[in-house]
């Protein structure tokens, strides 16, 4: 059973606001990921990290940024939210096998609505 937590679960904000979506895991996993998912659609990777001080952009271009100062924490920040950022954001983590992504475990997701 994986323990990975996201806050807030739901957020409605106005255009131009700065927001941070929090993601924490208690399994000591090295690898963490952020996926973006529009309703009824597939998941797209926007950021990932292999460990502390490691961050990479994913396959889908995103105006968000991430940081990895502690192993257990991988926050995602939008400096100036726009309606086009309305989506669900899913955080995941995995153990770090010698090769590959490993088995991913997801948090409950953060649903963002920008008015």
């Amino acid at each position, binding site marked *: 059973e994986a323990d990975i937590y996201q806050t807030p679960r739901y957020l409605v904000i106005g255009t131009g606001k700065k927001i941070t979506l929090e993601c924490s895991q208690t399994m000591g996993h090295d690898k963490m990921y952020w996926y973006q998912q529009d309703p*009824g659609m597939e998941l797209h*990777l926007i950021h990932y990290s292999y460990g502390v001080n490691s961050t990479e952009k994913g396959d889908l271009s995103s105006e968000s940024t991430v940081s990895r100062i502690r192993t257990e924490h991988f926050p995602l920040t939008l400096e100036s939210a726009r309606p086009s950022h309305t989506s669900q954001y*899913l955080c995941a983590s995995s153990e770090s096998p010698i*090769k*590959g*992504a490993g088995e991913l475990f*997801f948090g409950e997701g953060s649903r963002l609505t920008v008015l």
Partner: protein
Amino acid sequence: GIQVEQSPPDLILQEGANSTLRCNFSDSVNNLQWFHQNPWGQLINLFYIPSGTKQNGRLSATTVATERYSLLYISSSQTTDSGVYFCAVEDYGNNRLAFGKGNQVVVIP
């Protein structure tokens, strides 16, 4: 990058029926997972199955890596099985998963 195709895209089942969901992928993989996304949006791990067969209760999965496909079997379906089933794969040398578009399953009582 690797392509992932899931079929059928939509499926309506009578409670108690069995079904098979399919995931085809375009290249060799070293990681394949099946997830169930519940109506609240959370993704639940079902199987980590880069090859072979696994069973968990009424669900089972088989991956034939040499033929580039995986199957998810749901037996004696229940209304709680409703949701979207995602297949995700990772190709060799690429340390992240690519997701298919999902199988939307509705189980009616």
